[in-house]
């Protein structure tokens, strides 16, 4: 059953404000979600005033600046800082995206930063993604084939067969889409969500994979697949410009065709 409000331990209070230096001219406020398991307190929104003249252009640059210079306790995931690792996915200005790809300039007014929505919080901006990883494991995201590969050679694909994987292989599993999906919020225990379903289709669409039938069997379920109501928040929010809703639509069509 969907619960639209936050549990009592999860409501967010106003935290402290870290002022910018008095001589700073180009100041922007960053309101950042904070939760520390050791304090036993509810989450809070801390405000950090940052001089943009002394900060890199992306939201991740501001986060790193805060951690380096203002508040070392601020916790967030980051690695490649160029949109390929998927670590710094978070909710910025009301939409999920990668902090490293989000220019501060694109945000009007104060920059509100929250962890990926409707997730258990480990600390500050770090959510527990275990459920999503378990669901990814369930669809077995690897090549499954009974036919042996040609000796001393890779399994071949035509250009057309390879082209079918475009728009699928680029997914970096940042889970911006799944955590932007209201259906995944309410049914994420059983609904697989856009990211995992896009991965499922990536292997269904692979000409070298020989387990399409079994993969479709696994998805033919009122919850795993059909909790997708084509809300389209996934495609709207994907920082890589992919379209999980379309991949899910293709799975639904394959299932419909199979029914005959």
């Amino acid at each position, binding site marked *: *059953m969907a*619960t*639209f409000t*936050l*549990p009592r*331990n*999860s409501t*967010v209070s106003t935290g402290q404000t870290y002022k910018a230096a008095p001589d700073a001219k180009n100041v922007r406020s960053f309101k950042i*979600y904070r*939760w520390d*398991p*050791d304090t*036993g307190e*509810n*989450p809070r929104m801390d405000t950090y005033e940052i001089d943009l003249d002394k900060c890199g252009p992306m939201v991740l640059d501001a986060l790193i600046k805060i951690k380096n210079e203002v508040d070392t306790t601020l916790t967030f995931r980051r690695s490649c800082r160029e949109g390929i690792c998927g670590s710094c996915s978070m*909710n910025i*200005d*009301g*939409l999920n995206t990668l902090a490293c790809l989000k220019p501060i300039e694109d945000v009007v007014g104060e920059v*509100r930063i*929250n*962890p*990926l*929505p*409707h*997730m*258990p*919080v*480990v600390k500050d901006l770090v*959510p*527990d993604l*275990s*459920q999503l990883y378990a669901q990814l494991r369930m669809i077995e995201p690897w090549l499954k084939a009974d036919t042996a590969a040609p000796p001393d050679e890779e399994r071949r694909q035509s250009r057309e067969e390879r082209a079918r994987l475009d728009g699928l292989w680029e997914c970096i599993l940042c889970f911006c889409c799944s955590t*932007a999906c*209201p259906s995944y*919020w309410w049914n*994420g*225990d*059983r609904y697989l969500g856009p990211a995992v379903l896009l991965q499922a289709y990536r292997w269904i669409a692979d000409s070298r994979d020989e387990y399409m039938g079994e993969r479709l069997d696994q998805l033919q379920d009122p919850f795993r697949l059909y909790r997708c*109501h*084509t*809300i*389209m*928040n996934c*495609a*709207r929010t994907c920082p890589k410009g992919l*379209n999980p*809703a*379309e991949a899910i*639509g*293709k799975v*639904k*069509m394959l299932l419909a065709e199979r029914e005959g």
Partner: protein
Amino acid sequence: MAHSNDAREALMIGRRTDGTTVRRPLSPHLQVYDMLQMTSALSIMHRISGAAWSVGLIFFVWWVAAAAAGPEAYGRMAGFMGSFIGVPILFGITAAAWYHILAGIRHLMWDFGYGYDIPTTYRTGWIVIAGTAVMTVLTWIVAIVAWAS
């Protein structure tokens, strides 16, 4: 917590630095997400308009039942429908029905595999909104003209 049968419940238990357990907060969702973006806004509208249309069927049943029950009952029904409470309700049902039909066609189009890219999604979204306004007003013009003549 109520979700005892939700597998995600296990993930709500975390640990403090000293090893004791702590209940983790659930990160904000509706509270922080931009729900007014066209994608989710039109989706929830589809559900609301469907529910409104279903409730509207009660008035249709009342209309048919009143017509069967005789002139007195029909007069009471017509009196309510023509009142300052009845007219907005009827207008609302008309708008909900047209929205649900047009958004439903948009959903069918997706189910046939068309129009998933975001620019097309926004274009068809605006068409649904504009179409609802136009068709609702047209329906009422036709109804009023037919009633007046």
